[in-house]
């Protein structure tokens, strides 16, 4: 059983402001953390390995600093870690990122199961997992809230699709994206920290990718362009109701009545 977990290092905070004059970002802190959804994906992988045997490899695309995230993954129990890192990957959108990841998966000889977090906390798109599955031509189930069973042939999962809960079975190979609260990620272990201190982290550049197709990577391979960034608008009307609680309540009830928003009117 070969399990791949896709992870991403994200900014520790999403507190960021835009300069309304220039449209440029007023910088985010440089602190990073592991995307919390991906920790659930890693935990899911480790539990499946405990049940079915095999290996868990963590894959990411990003700067070499992602090494600290990979060390944490080792401390949780991952067997191998691979970082796809090259300046040629910079500026990747969903299409280029998922393509590059798919090249990483192929380089590693494929996998029986690929696990991703449902989404990242910086991009919020929830698109990389399904896009990666499409590049690899394998089925996927997204927003998985529970794994009900797994065996040598495949896996049974529960997905919450708004008002419907769907239980499905997928045979290997397949890809799942998991919900944040589907499992509680284990804490890094000090024993594993010592054991894995010398374990190498493989860094893969563009030249090692199987297809080496520059037109599909980075900014060149990204069909979407961010034209500009701007702060969210605040709309205002601001009618003040004044004169103490009694008058204010009178005024508001009169307004609601006029707008037909009182329940007695709504029912009628």
């Amino acid at each position, binding site marked *: 059983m070969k399990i791949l977990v896709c992870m991403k290092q994200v900014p520790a905070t*999403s507190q*960021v*402001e*835009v300069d309304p004059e220039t449209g440029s970002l007023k910088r*985010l802190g440089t602190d990073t953390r592991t995307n919390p959804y991906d920790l659930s994906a890693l935990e899911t992988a480790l539990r499946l390995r405990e049940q079915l045997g095999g290996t868990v490899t963590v894959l990411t695309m990003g700067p070499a600093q992602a090494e600290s995230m990979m060390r944490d993954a080792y401390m949780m129990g991952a067997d191998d870690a691979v970082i796809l890192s090259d300046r040629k990957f910079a500026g990747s959108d*969903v*299409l280029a990122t*998922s393509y590059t990841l798919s090249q990483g998966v192929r380089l590693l000889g494929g996998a029986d199961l690929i696990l991703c977090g449902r989404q990242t*906390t910086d*991009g*919020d*798109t*929830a*698109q*990389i*997992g*399904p896009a990666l599955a*499409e590049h690899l*031509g*394998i*089925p*996927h*189930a*997204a927003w998985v809230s529970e794994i009900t069973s797994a065996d040598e042939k495949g896996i049974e999962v529960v997905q919450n*699709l*708004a*008002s*419907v809960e*769907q*239980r*499905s*079975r*997928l045979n290997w190979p*397949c890809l799942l994206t998991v919900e944040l609260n589907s499992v509680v990620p284990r804490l890094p272990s000090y024993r594993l920290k010592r054991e894995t201190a010398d374990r190498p982290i493989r860094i893969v550049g563009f030249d090692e990718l199987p297809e080496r197709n520059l037109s599909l990577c980075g900014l060149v391979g990204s*069909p*979407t*362009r961010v034209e*500009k*960034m*701007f*702060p*969210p608008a*605040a709309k*205002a*009307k*601001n009618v*003040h*109701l004044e004169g103490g*609680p009694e008058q*204010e*309540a009178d005024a*508001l*009830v009169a307004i609601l*009545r006029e707008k037909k*928003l*009182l*329940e*007695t009117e*709504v*029912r009628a």
Partner: protein
Amino acid sequence: MTSIRFNSAACDLCQQCVEKCPFGALSIGAEGMSINEKCRMCGVCVKTCPHRAITFEQTPSRDGAVKDQWKGILVYAEQEAGALHPVTFELIGEARRLAAKVGYDVYAVLVGGEGTAANAEKLLPYGVKEVFVYEHPGFTGFKADCYADAMADCISQLRPSVVLIGATALGRSLAPRLSVRFHTGLTADCTKLDMRPSTDLVQIRPAFGGNVMAQILITDARPQFATVRYRVMDRAAKVPDPTGKVTRMPVTDAMARSGIEVLELRQLVREKSIEEEDILVVAGRGAKNEEGVALCRRLAEALGGQLCFTRPMAESGLGDPSHQIGLSGRTVRSKLIITCGVSGAIQFAAGMNGSDCIVAINTDPEALIFNIASYCIVDDLFTVVPALLERLSAAEKEGE
């Protein structure tokens, strides 16, 4: 222009592509694979080939030639437990607004099991020119892979410039597969759209947890895929003389074949969600304690609505996290929302500022919530809300 490229060096003659092609368009001869005119560019072969010997090839074009070949707006009409998802009507409304700017038509496509064609008929009064239906018992339940095959079939025949999909759990699972298949761009979770005369779709979405809005374009590729947030766009109005038609599309067993076996579909028993609610009352940090929350709850009940919470309230345990409004919670667009003791941080506001009528009650005259409120009451909720409750119960007695 997209074409299919065949790399004979990588092919090991396994013939899986020939077998899987839903249209019987492939054959393998002495010269390797050949494609005949039955090909609809659905991409099943590209997906099937274990050696990636078959790929889509997009000839880059920057002179607008690509744009001219892709016309119209296609809306994916999502079904949920056999009924149309309400986001569908919002997408049609938005699609019609965008289409009018460049003289496009609006189309819709449905994929699903039994009853799908009947749902398709329900879209015609809303001014859709043609509704394409892929109905097959194999499409019961959501299977991302074969839903994508059916959608790809529709897209390759219609060649729409824009494809709009609801940013629901289902839509955000389906859309990425399609954008990869057509080697084009996809913007997730758009909250605002516009159409340029060049037919470039302006896609605006919150980024960095909603602290920034990003305006995104797909200028050199078609179709342009966007998933659109539920409850952000205005629902389509009915048109006086609908002229659209429903077209049943042939579904082959191969198209409905999936790597996903749906074992069970269970309708989650739930009350009206806060997204669907017309009247909401929000308890913020100013509600302080259980007594304050209870006051707000009584107000919600008296108005016939539901009680919601800000993030601090949900985190402190005073509020139900599933009723949390804001970027990390739900986005609501109610007719009336009364916020009690809510400061109105931008992350909260982004989740509710599409509401028609916003009433803010807060003791702090500087609270941000007053910037977006339609009606401002700078006062203590512990005195105003009881006064409101008194009047509302009096009004109810009158009504009886």
